[in-house]
């Protein structure tokens, strides 16, 4: 007697697999869907066509001045970017000294990348480098005046260099300041508590531009006669104070999410306020609010553009400044410049937001 063998399962019906079925499910499910898909496709084709025409087909790619970008139906004027790229990255930093900036960029990159990869080794060594050695190195390299390096005034800094200096300093200063403010806001000492609340609410209630105005026109009045410091430095202080107030609120969210049992357990172990905070509360609270912290960083990075209003030349500021160059004045120069700056800013911000999502998924353990 032949042994019973099951028939092989039949393949799924042709109507539920493959590209056609996917499209039926996701694009053409209902008549309304069909209409939306058709309209959407028309819009995308129209927009894509326009962008392609502008960025590639009608664009100029080589030339030495505005005459390269004056044909009828002119698209993007890429030679403008090509000619000014050095300015856009380094500003008026002396050409002979640009290697110093490059070295700073290189070391920053080399220090940051292994920091961001969770599996990379030697984390504590890396942190010590980034927080201890690197800032000192950067300061000496960029300003000079020591070890035979010629001095470069900050008024000559510009472009991406200034954007990154403002953003990185702001990020590095706002996180610790924000943590202190958040702890202060939950302090049991009323004087400290109200001071922190006042600071946070004032800085969150006003626009950054008024803070920068304050730093650039009001701060000199607050200092004794003859004492004055660098405009870049003043803006750095303004940006750092401003974003620390936002950081404080993000950190406070994390602090409030720590269950009371954690405090009780710490108290039961005999830990005091500082040890409880440092060993029990902060590590958990900060981990909870990493997305919020990165969002604040992204906001800060975008906000660095505001320094152009008080007369510093960050990336956007220097692009804007070079529009005044008569040898490149064409109708398309502005849009080309803005698109270039936009793509640069976008890449940084998008990378940060993706990294935040990656860390969020990685850290979402046990909750």
């Amino acid at each position, binding site marked *: 007697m032949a042994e019973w063998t099951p028939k092989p399962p039949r393949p799924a019906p042709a109507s539920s697999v493959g590209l056609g079925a996917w499209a039926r499910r*996701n*694009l053409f*499910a209902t008549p309304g*869907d069909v209409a*939306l*898909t058709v309209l*959407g*496709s028309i819009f*995308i084709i129209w927009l894509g066509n326009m962008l392609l025409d502008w960025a590639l087909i009608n664009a100029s790619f080589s030339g030495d001045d505005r005459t390269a970008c004056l044909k009828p139906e002119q698209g993007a004027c890429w030679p403008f970017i090509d000619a000014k790229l050095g300015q856009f990255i380094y500003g008026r930093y002396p050409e002979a000294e640009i290697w110093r900036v490059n070295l700073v960029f290189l070391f920053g990159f080399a220090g940051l990348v292994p920091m961001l990869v969770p599996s990379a080794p030697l984390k504590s060594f890396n942190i010590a480098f980034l927080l201890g050695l690197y800032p000192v190195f950067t300061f000496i390299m960029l300003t000079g005046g020591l070890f035979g390096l010629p001095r470069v005034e900050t008024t000559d800094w510009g472009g991406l260099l200034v954007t990154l200096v403002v953003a990185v300093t702001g990020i590095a200063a706002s996180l610790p300041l924000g943590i202190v403010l958040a702890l202060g806001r*939950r302090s*049991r*000492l*009323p*004087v*400290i508590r109200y*001071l922190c609340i006042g600071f946070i609410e*004032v800085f*969150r*209630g*006003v*626009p*950054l*531009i*008024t803070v920068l*105005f*304050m730093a650039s*026109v*009001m701060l*000199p*009045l*607050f*200092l*004794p*006669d003859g004492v004055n410091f660098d405009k870049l430095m003043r803006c750095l202080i303004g940006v750092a104070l401003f974003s620390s107030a936002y950081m404080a609120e993000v950190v406070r969210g994390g602090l409030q999410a720590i*269950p*009371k049992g954690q*405090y*009780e357990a710490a108290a039961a172990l005999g830990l005091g306020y500082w040890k409880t905070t440092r060993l029990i509360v902060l590590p958990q609270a900060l981990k909870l609010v990493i997305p919020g912290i990165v969002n604040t960083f*992204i906001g800060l990075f*975008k*906000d*660095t*553009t*505001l320094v*152009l*209003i008080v007369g510093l030349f960050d990336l*956007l500021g220097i692009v*804007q400044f070079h*529009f005044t160059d008569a040898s490149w004045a064409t*109708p398309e120069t*502005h*849009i080309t410049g*803005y698109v270039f*700056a*936009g793509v640069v*800013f*976008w890449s940084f*911000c*998008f990378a940060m*937001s993706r990294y935040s999502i990656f860390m969020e998924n990685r850290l979402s353990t046990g909750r």
Partner: protein
Amino acid sequence: MSERSIIARWRARVGLHDVLAQILVALVLLMAVYWLVGNVISNLERQNIASGFGFFNERAGFGINQTLIDYDEDNNYGRVLAVGLLNTLLVSVLGIAAASFLGFFIGIGRLSQNWLISKMAMVYIEIFRNVPLLLQIMFWYFGVLRNLPVPRQSLSLGEFIFFNNRGFMLPAIHAGEGALWYLLAVIVSLGAFFWLKRRARQMLMATGNIATVWRPTGTLFLLALLTAYLIAGVPFQFDIPVLRGFNFRGGISIIPEFVALLLALSLYTASFIAEIVRAGIESVDRGQREAAAAIGLTGPQALNLVIVPQALRVIIPPLTSQYLNLTKNSSLAVAIAYPDIVSVFAGTTLTQVGQAVEIILVTMLIYLSLSLVTSLVMNWYNARIALVGGTHG
């Protein structure tokens, strides 16, 4: 024991050295303030800068290209402040309305079953929220609107609306005396709408029947308009802009600075609002949707009666902070010289008067009050839509 009571116990244990620490902090702060104020006073004396708010009554002597109230060069700085504040409010209120509208649709689109629509919404959000707002404002202003043709070669829409590098020219409507009847018609219809809506809600709660509000209101509105027409005829005159010489006369002209700022603020903030709306709708449990389907609600009914009211509770607090952000971000107007408060008061007035301390402080105080008022209004709305009866919410 709640966390609050732990903190309360901690506070009760404030010891002697805590008191001393606080006194020390307060002392250091007072000394710092004393030192700073001393510096300010001596600096002001040395630079011969007046102090106080007397400058508010001085003649400003500069023109402003968009004023909601009467203003000319002979008005004083106090009037400048009022003009700037109104311009800030105008762009903020319109920006909030536009950004909410756009953000809501994009947020819904992000959740669409349609793959293409959902991806388009995603691309929009990722592009607009990751590019600095200042860059977007400058892009629209210097890149697009200033690049429009000169008035003589204006782009036009049906010979009524014109676009050129001096702004948008729209037809103005001049209302005669009979227009009051039309206003009355609108007010009556609005009143009827809210009254009917209230009644419909009461009926829904009492009997479960859903009454339509739009049909009776619409009929009433048409009837009211007809009555107004029969009484007053057409009391409106259209003032269409016409090209005279090098620029347009007549109509309403909207300055390009305003258009650029409004456009950039709305598009930028809409990308954040879309994400908030998406998160809010996703936060509503799937079971709610299934339950709504099970009791026979149609798609739009389920959205209106079940999903949106619950999603709003999640949406309102972050939405409030976006509104506040938009209001504060309107200060970037200074980069394109839209005459908002920062531009005309903390900018031009500061340059002319030189009293940095007073002017910056007044500007900050105004923004603080604006933030406070917006928060209060939104908190009131939030409390109104919060769970009634406070169950496990």
